[in-house]
């Protein structure tokens, strides 16, 4: 594993995008970033601008308005940028499968690198998803 990928696994800056979510997943993401779980010891920081992001966390089944913005955000993120779908709605639209105003689960719009199911996933589950992503990155 080359040095660039190693640095990427050791310093992950996370951008959070919530589109048409009920915000429970967003609250759980916020919980994962509080001092109780202390993700900064793994180099994970929450940042505000998409241009600084390494991982984009997407929650919620994406609405039509949100889909436009999600596509734009993914193009604005400097590559390599990984996308993580957090929560059932982002993974597969869950109970909103046949809804008229949703533009589909996240992987219909942008490539997704990790799925974290749950409604909402506990912070421990979110951390486990991130760890699995890092391990997959390290393997190549």
């Amino acid at each position: 594993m080359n040095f660039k990928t190693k640095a990427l696994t050791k310093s992950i800056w996370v951008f959070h995008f919530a589109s048409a979510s009920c915000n429970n997943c967003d609250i759980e993401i916020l919980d994962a970033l509080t001092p109780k779980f202390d993700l900064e010891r793994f180099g994970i920081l929450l940042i505000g601008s998409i241009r600084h992001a390494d991982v984009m966390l997407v929650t919620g089944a994406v609405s039509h308005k949100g889909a436009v913005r999600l596509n734009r955000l993914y193009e604005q993120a400097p590559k390599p940028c990984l996308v993580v779908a957090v929560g059932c709605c982002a993974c597969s639209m869950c109970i909103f499968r046949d809804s008229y105003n949703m533009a589909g689960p996240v992987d219909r719009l942008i490539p997704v690198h990790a799925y974290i199911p749950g409604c909402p996933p506990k912070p421990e589950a979110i951390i486990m998803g991130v760890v699995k992503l890092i391990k997959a990155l390290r393997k190549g």
Partner: protein
Amino acid sequence: MAKTLFYFVVFPGFLFTALVGLLVSWIDRKVTARVQWRVGPPLLQPLYDFVKLLGKETIVPQAGSRLTFLLSPLLGLAAVTIVSTILWLAMTSPEVTFLGDLIVVIYLLTIPSISLIIGGFASGNPLASLGASREMKMILGYELPFILAIFTPVIKAHGVIRLGELLQYQWGNGIFLSSCSGFIAFVVAIICMQAKLALVPFDIPEAETEIIAGPYIEYSGAPLAVYKLTRWMMLFVVPIFLVVMFMGGIIFEGWHILWGILKYVLLLVLIILIRNTNPRLRIDQAIKFFWGPMTILAVLGIVLSFLGK
């Protein structure tokens, strides 16, 4: 020629300042974590951040001006490297300093903020422009009491403006901090330093919850890495400047080296603790604070130093 290049690039110039800057930013994050009852990042975390940023794609916004956008981070880096070289050469061998280098240092210390303003305005993003304009207002605010506070040691040392002579005066007559006027000027200088380093309560330009990342918002990849490195180097260089001006610098013989490093670390921990215990000010509150109480205190310090206290 080779010696000058060595001074500027290796020690005490770029490499030395960059490495110590990485260490100092780690100390900052670790102390912050400890104060918040957390564990905090490992020692090499700033290095990982820097290397990762170098490996990311650099995107130049279409509405921005390309050359200015890409070149402005380098201005700040160059300025802080030169300041660090001047300060450390003044401490290790005071006779190589030149007349007026104090003025050069004060002037060069504003350049990183100016390079941030230029970069913010070259981004073509309204939030970046807002952050850059806030940075401009901040400079107008804190530069006045900062320079007035710097007058106090100059007056006490009978009007010398050579860093080497200021250091030698302190080694002969006691550090400026031990006098009443020096103490007042030191307090003003610490608070102005907090604003110069853009730390809470004065991190108004990069107010994360208000204007996302302020002037840094469109930066990604290598230019962002250079900005971050400049910021970490400033966290190292500006307290060293204050140690030189008010606490007699670091004397390089025997136990005094340890005592000098301790002086710097105490100042650093003071900044970190102020940073962790205060909310952020609004820009108008900050300007009123700097042009009001701080300027009055700095003028009081000057008056006391004229009276000889």
